[in-house]
Structure formats: structure tokens, C-alpha cells
């Protein structure tokens, strides 16, 4: 059962949207009203494919969705090693109210400078919260040079560092970086709390999450981080099969022979990096150079551009492989459009970058091995996660 948070009439948002779309091209000042930072240009018209969230109706369930409880997680998520991957800080645990607020913020276009894009514009739920395009379109029409990473199971990245170059120290500190980034969302963080607090609907959400309606950037960060940590995918075909056996190395009864063969190949050739020390998370423990470039003169130095450590050049973080079927294109720059292309890369062993990880060796996969591996990777798709209303856009 759903109810509206605000007491708007059902016609108001629609009328406002129609009005805005009709007159906006002719009245630049109107765009200025949407723009928090008057020094920044309004987005090109082509970006306004969705109405700004403040012109839509915020619809939340009468009884909050459950984000905080973990009892529904399968056993292989809760076992000792897998549990130790959890990066939830003790001072910002997931609460239902906090994650609800984070969800609303995640989809609110007012987090961008000209009220045109939200976090959810580039991190698309049905794409595993990745961007289906190699580069993401920013608030002013520019395109990023990196692919928007998927946001699947961020809670279980043990190092708790984020972005392809791991410059984000933890979710709480990194969530506002794209908001502030001059290409991505361009918001002036000095104005952000004012922009948000102008909407009365937020006051109750902040009161529920933090005990009072005060809006601060820190609280915005904490709520967003809670929502992001709640994005846990655990209901894939793999999870069903894994729950029925004592070890992931056993064949799964719900798998086809090809999927089990692919699982065996994955365990042997990929798991050392992508499924380390547990069998739940499909994340890597550290950024790695996988031989995407020949040398250090590539346009993107990854972690090395942040640390200036010679050993880090060309190292990139890897997102979770959960839902990898839908999170393409792949790699930090989205250079590989398909999983076939990714496997071709690992089959060849990649290029001869001096920092290439020793684990990236030519696999020389046969065609049937590639097909089996892809069949297995597709068992990591979690349709419920990709359409879970708890994670969907609450602005109707």
C-alpha cells in the first residue's frame, strides 16, 4: 500500500510538468529557477527527458520498506569470512528511515546544479545501477571519460574504497563527490543543504532518519551511504543453488551442466580475484592492473594517478560481478561492450603493461569454455534486485 508524503493534488505535478515543458524553451529564467548555481548553464534541452523530481510526486509506502534487516540474507552471506567483507561503519548502520531518505535523495534531480539529473540518472536500476552507456552524460551535457560503476553490493567491498581509482575513502565521504563534480552534477555543496531543505517533504524524512529535521551535507551523505549499502543482490540463480549445497565447489542442482561447467572454470581461473576467501560477494579485494594498456602512457592511470605510486599505475577497482549480465559496457572506460569481449581479453591475457597482475595470464579459452563461463556469469543475475521497488525511483 502506498501513500503520498506530501499533500499535493494529483493534478498539480502533471500540470506543472506540462507547463514547464511548454514554456521552458522560451523562458530561460525558468531554467534558472531550477538551477541552484546561477553561474552554471542550464542543461541542454535533450537532457530533460524526465521532469525534475520536484515537479513529480514523491510516493513512499505507508509502512517503510525494510532495508536494515539482514536476516533474509542467505547463509553464505552471513558466514564468518563473507561477513567480514561488510564495510558498514559502526556509526552509520543502515536504518529503514535512513535508507528511505537516501533513496529519495538518490533519485532527486535537485542534487545537480541545474535540477536535471540525479544519481539514478546514470546509475540505472535495471542495469544493476550502472550506466548502459560507456560514458555518462553530465548535468551540462558533457560526457565522463569513465563508465559509471555498478552499485551492487557496495556494502561488501572489504577495503571500503570506491571509484575506479579508489580515491573515495568510504561511502560516506565519496557520495557527494559526483554531486560536486563539475562535469557530473555540478552542485555547489555550500548550497546543497539549503536546496534540499526548501522542500518540506524532506523535513519529515530527515526527522525520521536523524531525530530532527535539520538538513546538513553530512546527513545527506550518511543517508545516501545507507541507501547504497542497502543495494544488496542475493536472490540470483547462483544464490539459490549455493544455498542448497555445503560448498560452492559442488555442482548446483538448479544449474544446467553448462552452468556447472562454467562455475568450475570460474572457480579455477577467476575466483582467485573475483571471489576471494568466500563465495558470496564476487568482489575484488584490491585494485588490479589487468593489462588493459600497453604502458603507463595511457590516458587514465587509475589508482596510480591518485597515489603517484609507480606500482599503482594502471590499477583499477573492479565492481561486483553480481548482475554482470546487465552492467555493461565493461571496464573503467566501458571499452568492452559485451561479456564475450571481456572474456576475449582475459583469454588473450591482455596487453603487456609492466604493472599487469601476475594473475592475468592468457587463458586461451576454447569456444565452449567461453560459452560455459558466460552461462555461469548469467546465473549471477538477480531479477528481483533489478526491479525491487525498494530501490526504485520514488518520484512518480
Amino acid at each position, binding site marked *: 500500500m502506498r501513500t503520498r508524503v506530501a499533500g499535493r493534488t494529483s493534478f498539480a505535478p502533471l500540470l506543472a510538468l506540462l507547463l514547464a515543458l511548454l514554456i521552458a524553451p522560451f523562458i530561460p529564467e525558468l531554467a534558472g529557477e531550477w538551477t541552484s548555481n546561477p553561474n552554471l548553464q542550464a542543461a541542454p534541452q535533450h537532457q530533460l527527458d524526465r521532469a525534475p523530481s520536484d515537479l513529480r510526486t514523491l510516493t513512499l509506502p505507508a509502512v517503510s520498506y525494510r532495508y536494515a534487516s539482514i536476516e533474509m540474507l542467505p547463509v553464505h552471506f552471513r558466514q564468518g569470512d563473507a561477513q567480514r567483507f561488510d564495510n558498514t561503519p559502526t556509526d552509520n548502520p543502515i536504518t529503514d528511515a535512513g535508507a528511505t531518505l537516501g533513496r529519495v535523495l538518490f533519485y532527486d534531480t535537485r542534487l545537480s546544479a541545474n535540477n536535471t539529473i540525479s544519481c539514478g540518472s546514470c546509475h540505472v536500476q535495471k542495469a544493476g545501477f550502472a550506466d548502459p552507456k560507456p560514458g555518462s552524460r553530465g548535468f551540462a551535457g558533457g560526457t565522463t571519460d569513465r563508465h559509471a560503476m555498478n552499485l551492487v553490493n557496495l556494502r561488501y567491498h*572489504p577495503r571500503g574504497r570506491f571509484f575506479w581509482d579508489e580515491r573515495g575513502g568510504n561511502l560516506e565521504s565519496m557520495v557527494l563527490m559526483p554531486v560536486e563534480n563539475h*562535469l557530473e552534477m555540478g552542485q555547489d555543496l555550500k548550497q546543497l543543504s539549503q536546496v534540499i531543505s526548501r522542500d518540506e517533504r524532506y523535513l519529515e524524512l530527515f526527522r525520521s532518519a536523524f531525530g530532527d529535521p535539520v538538513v546538513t551535507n553530512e546527513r545527506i551523505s550518511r543517508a545516501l551511504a545507507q541507501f547504497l549499502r542497502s543495494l544488496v543482490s542475493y536472490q540470483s540463480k547462483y544464490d539459490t543453488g549455493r544455498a542448497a549445497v555445503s560448498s560452492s565447489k559442488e555442482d548446483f542442482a538448479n544449474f544446467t551442466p553448462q552452468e556447472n561447467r562454467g562455475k568450475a572454470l570460474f572457480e579455477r581461473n577467476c575466483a*582467485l580475484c573475483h571471489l576471494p576467501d568466500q563465495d558470496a560477494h564476487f568482489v575484488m579485494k*584490491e585494485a588490479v592492473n589487468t593489462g588493459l594498456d600497453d604502458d603507463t602512457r595511457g590516458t587514465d592511470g587509475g589508482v596510480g594517478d591518485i597515489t603517484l605510486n609507480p*606500482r599503482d599505475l594502471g590499477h583499477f577497482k573492479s565492481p561486483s560481478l553480481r548482475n554482470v549480465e546487465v552492467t555493461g559496457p565493461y571496464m573503467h572506460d566501458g571499452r568492452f561492450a559485451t561479456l564475450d569481449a571481456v572474456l576475449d581479453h582475459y583469454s588473450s591475457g591482455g596487453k603487456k603493461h*609492466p604493472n599487469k597482475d601476475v594473475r592475468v595470464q592468457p587463458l586461451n579459452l576454447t569456444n565452449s569454455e567461453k560459452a560455459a563461463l558466460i552461462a555461469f556469469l548469467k546465473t549471477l543475475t538477480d531479477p528481483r534486485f533489478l526491479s525491487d521497488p525498494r530501490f526504485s525511483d520514488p518520484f512518480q
Partner: protein
Amino acid sequence: MRYGCAALLMLISSAVMASAQDQVRFTAPAPTVDAVIHRDAIVNSLNSLALLNKNVEVRVSPEEVVARLMSFDRNGDGKVAINELSERMQGLVARADRSADGALDATEIRSFSESPQSFQTAFRNLQGGGYGFGDTGGLSTRTHIENTIEDLRLAPQVNQEAKRIGAAFADELEGTALANLKRVVAPMLAEPQLAEFERNLTSATSVRNRVITMSSNGTRTTQTFAIGAEPVMMLARYPLTPEQRKTASAAAETFKAEQQLDDARRSALVAQVSGILTDEESDNFRAALARRPLVKGLGAFGNFQATISEEPVRLQFPGNGAPVREIGFIDVPVASTSR
């Protein structure tokens, strides 16, 4: 017999770089001894860990970092100003700009690149320890063949027959290699020494995995720790002349090489098994045999001190029933698991 802690710390630090984060997670309490490990695990693992450690060698020089950063100097003034860097890199200026002029010159970049800054230390984390190839780190060819057959997911009877053929092939490979090695070292060793050497070598090569377990707030976990049979190390305990040692070492290297699956041996094995496999299965078998098996080295436990036990420590291994012999363990009491 107790060894000093320094040896173990040197050994572990050679293979492990622990981050500040892990040091928090695995904070060791104040007492001087936090761990126990059997001495054979140290002796036999020296070579393996050295191999695994190759993965953390520095192969890009600071000069390359300098050249890369200076390529962002668009106006050619010899400095990289903050607005010449991409937004994600602009934090570098605050951290490396010693002259506080808002830009980085080559000296500042080089200095920052070479210095072990706290930021880098915290950033760095090879939590999984080093990685290396099983064929040089203790995973026998026999195990590689068995694993490869297992991964093919053959029908049960075919699987059994393929494993029988694979085991016979491995028997011959290992037997021939051992006989050749014994022929060389036998004149150099007394009879009891030769028996001991053969016993140790056979024992070591029969071990599939050796494990180190650790406890973390009461939670016991297990990690595979590949430790190779290292005949050169085993021969080191016997008094040989320099010439004998040179000859024995060469024979030991040959012993290892003779057990590797080179192209000819791989083809011979595939030919033996091909009668019971489909063409596609044979192709997959050949491809998988050609892949060098990767193994993981010692995990990063942070800084701790340990003592070394003379007696092998037998542990319960909660594995999948595979024949595993545990020869040592590290048991780290954890003061905090704060994240």
C-alpha cells in the same frame, strides 16, 4: 626450539604488505607472541614466498610517474597547475605541493612518488598476500591434472577412467624425475641421509595443500597456503662440497622441470585420454592443462609477532574431504575488528 620473531616477520613482510586498515582489523595485542608456526612451514616456504613476492616488485620507475604527470603541463611552464589536472587528480596538489605555489614540479612529483607517505601506506593493501604459479609453488602436476579433469564435468565413469589415466601418467612423471635426482645425489649422501631426503621429498610432493588458519575474534578461518617441495632447500641441511652442492642443485632444478607439463608431455597425456573424450572435451582438456595454475600466498595479517614451534601442529581442516596435511598455523588473537 624457538626462533626469534624477526625471521618470521621478515618472511611475512616479504610477501605481505598490510594496510593501516588491516592493521586495525587485525590489531595484535601487546604481548610479544601472537602466533605459532611450525618451522618446516618456514623452511619449505622460503622459495615459494620468494616466487610469490615477484608480484609486488616495482616495475615502473618514479621517472615514469614524473613523465606522466608532466604530460599534463599544457602551458609548458614546467609545472602542473591544479587546473591542468583532471578533477579527480586535483587532490594531488594539496598532498605533494611542498613549495605551496599551487602547482607541482618534477622534483615534487618525484619526491612524492618515492616517499612512503602515510596516504600511500593507508592506501596500500595486498590483503590476499602474493600470488604465484602453483607449478612452481607447490601445486604438483598430479594435482593440476586431477583438477583439470574434474573441471571438465565428465560423466562419472569417464571421469573415473580419465583420472586413472592421469594418475598413472603422474606416477611415471614423478617416478622418473625422482629416480634421476636420486641417481645424482646418491653418491653425495650417506644412506640414512638419502633415505631421509627421499622421505621428505616424497612427503612434500604428496601434500596438496598446506593451510594456515587464524582466528579472528573467535572465528576460525582457513586459507590455502601453497608451499612447494623445494629439494634445493632440503639438500641445504647436508654437508656437501661446493662442487657437490652445485651439481645437486642443478639436479634438483632438473627434478622440478621434469615434472612440469611441457608441450610434449601435455600432448602425450591428451593422446592417452582422448580415446574416452569427445573432440570438444579433448580440446578443453588440452587448453586447461596449458594454463598455469595460480595459487595465493600468505594473507595479510598486519603486524604481529610469532614464535616458531618445533612440533608439527595438527589442525582440523573443515575442507571438502580432500587429502590435506596441515603443518602449521598462525593463530592471531584479535583485539578489535572495527571497520
